[in-house]
Structure formats: structure tokens, C-alpha cells
């Protein structure tokens, strides 16, 4: 499985034929989440079923009587998507064991469960259910699409919102300017559950992303993938620059790419290249300047914010380098 080389032409052809995720959904132009969903589906070998936490992806893809999903899809509530995944897995296990549907040509039980949650549904309100599922070892692939705020309810801060970012609940005021705290180290928190596989993904690097999604799907136990997801509306960036921003996040080490197999951290793709050749690491300004949510940080009196942001990125990067053996 680790030697898989995705053939993008072949996969695109398959997607066009089977259309597991239909176009015509109402995700915004330039939204990263639609790309993430497609990439998960391209990486799959088995049939997939999706569980979705409340959030942008859920509301934009299933406005009754329409649905974008040509695979089984369920949404229960905001904070419990992982628990739905646990229930489905348990039900499936028992049905397979009982052989109840053996020979029924209309029912298939050989599938993988993907649970999809935004940053709010993962860092904050959903953390308990994810932690429970991971502790139990339930075999689900949990994908966090991280657009770094509660976007569905109108751009409020979450535990995944970066330092300095302007959101509607962390406005740039005369005293407090944007979000005061840094992002919660969500991957480390998940890895601390001793799950067999965790990784970060930026869809701009599709090859890296597809390989990781497949590894996540085929892990022996729970897997967690933190997928970076540009949000033009919430971030104030150009819709056409989604891929560019997804790349810059990696090139500046704001969002490094790595995977953690059985607790072992390993840098991948461009992040590995930067580790080997530190000159390639770009300053954070290059990433921040393309987004209105950070605009205030570029005013002379707020220069300290840029410095503080860079400091945090450097420190986290150093930590990651150490963890991955550099």
C-alpha cells in the first residue's frame, strides 16, 4: 500500500464514470473542502460511506430534495459524527459475523467508513466523541477539513483558528486584534491516542494527499487526517488562488506535511524537501498577505503580530523536525 503511485488520469476517468460526488453542490467557488472529498473518493479501493458533522460541507451538499452524494451519506448532529461512525462500524461487524445478508444481491457490507468534520466539529465540540472512538479503536477514517473557523455560522473563531486572524467573534478592535491564541495541536492530540495512522494533507499536493488518504482508509484501526481547506469567503482571498494558498501554507511551514505511523513522525513531500534544504522555507508573510483576515497584521504598529506568528511557526517547525528525526 505504501508503494501506491496514484495514476491521476486513470482516477479522473473512474471518477467521471462513477461520479461518487456530483457537481452542482453549493460549496463556494474556491472552497477547499470539495477537493478534499473528491480526493478521498479517488484514493478509495473499497466502497465508501460518509458520515458528516454539521457544517459547510453538510449544508452545501444535501439541500433537500437534492444530494451530491452517490455514496451512502449520513448526518446526525454537530458534535457526534465520530460516534455515528462507531455505531455504523459496530453494526456492520455484527451483520458480517451473522452472515445475515450473505447472498442478498442488494446489500453490500464491505465498505470503509469516512467521518468528515470541520475544525469546529473536530477541535471543539466533537473532540469528546472522536477521543472516545479512538480510545475504543473503532475502525474509522476521520478527516478534518480545516478552514480555520466556524464558517457555516458566519466565520466565528474555533480552536483551529490561527493567531491574529480576524473572525466575527475575534474582530480587530482597538484593544484586541484578532484571535489571541494559536491553533490547538490537533494532530498531536490525536496521535496521543496511539492510533495507527495520522497525517496532514494539503490538496494542492494531490499525490501526497491521495497516498495518505489511502493509507488512512487501510489502516488497521482508527486513522486521522488533518486536511487544510482554503475558504475564500472566510479568509478574504481570491477564489482562483485556492491552490496557490494551499501550496504557500506548506512552503512557509505554516501547515507542514507529515504522517505519523504508529507514533513515528515522518515529513513528506515538500516539507521533507524543506527539512533537507532549509533555504526553501518561505517567510510567513508570503502566505498571510494573500488573505484579508490577516491584513491588519501588515500595519506598521502591528508588526509584532507578524513576528509573533513567524516565531510560532518556527518553533512548531523545530518541534516537528525533532519529532521526525532531523
Amino acid at each position: 500500500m505504501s508503494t501506491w503511485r496514484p495514476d491521476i488520469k486513470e482516477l479522473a476517468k473512474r471518477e467521471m464514470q462513477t461520479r461518487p460526488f456530483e457537481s452542482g453542490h453549493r460549496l463556494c467557488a474556491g472552497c477547499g473542502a470539495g477537493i478534499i472529498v473528491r480526493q478521498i473518493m479517488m484514493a478509495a479501493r473499497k466502497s465508501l460511506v460518509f458520515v458528516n458533522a454539521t457544517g459547510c460541507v453538510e449544508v452545501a451538499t444535501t439541500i433537500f430534495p437534492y444530494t451530491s452524494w452517490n455514496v451512502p451519506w449520513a448526518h446526525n448532529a454537530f458534535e457526534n459524527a465520530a460516534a455515528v461512525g462507531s455505531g455504523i462500524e459496530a453494526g456492520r461487524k455484527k451483520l458480517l459475523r451473522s452472515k445475515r445478508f450473505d447472498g442478498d444481491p442488494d446489500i453490500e457490507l464491505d465498505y470503509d467508513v469516512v467521518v468528515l468534520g470541520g475544525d469546529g466539529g473536530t477541535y471543539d465540540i466533537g473532540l469528546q466523541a472522536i477521543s472516545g472512538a479512538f480510545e475504543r479503536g473503532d475502525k474509522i477514517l476521520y478527516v478534518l477539513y480545516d478552514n480555520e473557523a466556524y464558517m457555516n455560522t458566519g466565520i466565528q473563531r474555533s480552536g483551529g483558528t490561527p493567531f491574529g486572524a480576524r473572525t466575527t467573534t475575534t474582530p480587530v478592535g482597538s484593544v484586541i486584534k484578532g484571535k489571541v491564541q494559536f491553533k490547538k495541536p490537533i494532530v498531536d492530540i490525536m496521535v496521543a491516542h496511539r492510533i495507527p495512522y495520522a497525517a496532514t494533507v494539503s490538496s494542492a499536493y494531490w499525490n501526497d494527499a491521495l497516498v495518505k488518504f489511502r493509507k488512512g482508509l487501510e489502516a488497521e484501526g482508527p486513522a486521522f487526517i488533518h486536511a487544510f481547506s482554503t475558504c475564500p469567503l472566510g479568509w478574504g482571498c481570491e477564489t482562483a488562488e485556492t491552490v496557490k494558498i494551499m501550496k504557500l501554507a506548506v512552503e512557509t511551514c505554516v501547515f507542514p506535511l507529515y504522517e505519523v505511523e504508529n507514533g513515528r513522525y515522518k515529513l513528506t513531500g515538500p516539507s521533507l524537501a524543506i527539512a533537507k534544504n532549509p533555504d526553501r522555507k518561505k517567510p510567513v508573510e508570503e502566505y498571510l498577505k494573500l488573505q484579508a483576515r490577516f491584513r491588519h497584521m501588515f500595519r506598521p504598529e502591528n508588526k509584532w503580530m507578524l513576528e509573533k506568528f513567524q516565531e510560532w511557526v518556527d518553533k512548531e517547525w523545530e518541534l516537528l523536525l525533532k519529532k521526525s528525526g532531523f
Partner: protein
Amino acid sequence: MAVLKKVEQVMMALNGDEAVAWAVKQSNVDVVSAYPITPQTIIVERISEFVNNGEMDAEFIHVESEHSALTAAWGAALAGARAFTATAANGLALMWEILYITASTRVPVVMAVVNRALSAPINIHNDHSDTMGARDSGWIQIYSEDAQEAYDNTIMAFKIAEESLFPVMVTLDGFTISHTLQNVSVLPDDVVSDFVGVRRIPRIKLPRIHGDKEIPLMFNPKYPITFGPLDLYDYYFEHKVQQNEAMKETFPIIERVHKEYGEISGRSYEPVFMVPYRTEDADAIILGLSSTMSVVKKVVDDLRERGKKVGAIRLRVFRPFPADFLRRELSKFHAVGVLDRCISFGGEGGPLFNEVRSALYGLPSRPIVHNYIYGLGGRDLPRSLIVKIYEELLSARAEPEVPVVKYVGVRE
């Protein structure tokens, strides 16, 4: 409860929680997910023992909260499994959001709720504030009088849920039933197993996609379905009305399942929705729920011996609310006292009283209806107080404009 026929049953000394656990064990349940809370805990402990000893072939999901307990049961049922969970009081309150979602997605989960007072202040004893708070969530609610009925109701609940596509809550009073040992007639495993069968998967038609083909209503890559979408003002209202209409259509299903169960067990709960006791020529009756009614019936016997024309009616099914049956049954009495083991803060009387009184309002001749709120937080309702209620009802004069709502057994 009339005994129709004798079948081979074992008499077991079980408390109410154990009776439920036995029913679950025998009912071909595929997945159990649960989180402990007194006085429900014994249910999940017994089931864990059954599973760990290989006496029950189920997946037990040890969830990290009640919120996830109901959620995981929902997921399992969606995947095609028969799913059970159990809770009480604050656990049920934590599930509140998912109660609505389970009912509105028509996922047939069965849950035992061991009635307990809601915090604050924290109190582990019995009243009905928990399940009454869930009355509008779209679950069928069946209240048990004793451990035997908790056993019977749990078995029937699986069939009712799967045939109606509504989740079913079977309630039993905390400690009074859950922790009190009783002789329970337990059916043979295979009899229960045959009765409930394995989880049925309904087939539905989606003509625009699959033409005439009937596809299984479950999580299934062969025929994908989207469960729990966004539903805006253009459809939501209609869906809610349809849900309500469908709930009313569960009356005949509930009756039929009871009849079938009566045939195998010899225990028939007739009539199904409300059980009258010595009401034939009664002037005053007390209407209430669950274990309290055993004591009320005792008082009826005592008073009958003294020549008083009193009777009792125990409501078994609170949701759907059997208003038609009530109208038929209650119109002939002089006075009805409704027992509520729950307060509706700021309201005019308890929830049961409100519904009973409202059901009777349109009758040309209707009884006087008084409300008696009792037993909060496990407070005892002694016979002497029940006698006083009957005396009051027997001498009640024409209905006053303001409803009579009294607390029974509270210190002034």
C-alpha cells in the same frame, strides 16, 4: 392483565433492570451502546456480562457519554443492525438533541429509560421529569408498572419500533422497579427470538432513481441514500406534519404487537393503551402512570370494601397520546384525578393533566378533572394520601373555572 394461556416459562427473581437486560439478551439485539447512570446501571452491567460470557452475540460499544450512546445506536441501526441503549435523568437530558434526530430520521432504536429526577439539586430517585421532558421528541413512550411489564414491554418494543419506524422508549420507575426484586416470568429464548425475529430492513421505492425496484432502507453502497440532509422552509413543515400523522398510525401497530405477544406469553395487556381497574360503576377514578398505580389499585380495593365507588386507570402508552380512548373511557365518571410525577415550571398543572383535560374539553358531558402532583425526587405517596384524593374527588362539585392543581405529600 389477563392470562390467556399457559406457556412454559421460568419464574426468575429479577429486579426491573435485570428484567430489561434479559429481554434485550433474548431479543436478537445486534448492538448495545450505553453509558452508566444510576438507577439504570444494572441494565448495562448485566448486558456486559451476557456479552462477555458469550451468552449474547452483540457488539457492545462502550461510549464516552450518553450523547454518543444514542448516536452510536442510531449509526448501528442505520447500518442495518438492531440497536439498544438505556439511560436515566441527566443521561436522557444529554441525549435530548439526538432524541429528535433519531425520531425524525425514523430510525428504530429501542431505549430503556429508568425514570429519575432531573438535576438540580442532584437526586437519584424516581420521578418522571426526565421522560416527560422528552415527550415532544417523537418517540413512542411505554410506561411499565412492574418488572414483569418492563420485561414484556422491552421485547414488544423491538417489534413495534421496526414495524412503525419509530424509536421506542420503555420506561420503568427508578428503584421502585429498577432495584426491587420481583418474580418475573421469563419466556424461553427461542420463543422470544422467534417472536422478534432478526432486524427487518424495510424496502422502499425511489421511483425517479430506481424505477420499480424496491431498495433496502439502510446504509448500503449498492443503493446509496442520503440520511439527515438540510431541509429548508420549502419542505420541513410538510415533513413534520407527515411525521406526526405517521405517529398516529402507530396505534394499530402497537395494539397488534401486544395481541401477538399475548398469544405467545399468555400475558395480554388489554386494553393496550390504558388499563382500567374496577371502573365499571365508579364515580371517581385516579388516572396515572407506572408503579404508583399498583398502590392506587390497593387503595381502590380498600375503599370498595367500604362501599366507595372508586376505580383507577393506568395509562400505559403516553406517546402517541391515546386521546380517543380517553374520551371514550373517561366521559362517564363524575371526577378524575390525574397524577403527575413531574412539574411543568410555570405551567398550569403537570403534562399528563394538561393532555387529559384538553382531550376531554370538547365532550358534551365531561368529568371534573383535578391534578395531583406527587412524588418528586422519590417522595413516597402513602395510601393515606391516596385515600384523601379519592375523598376529595368523590365530593368534588362542578368544575371550577381555575383548574385544581395540588401537591400531594409536600411539607407546607
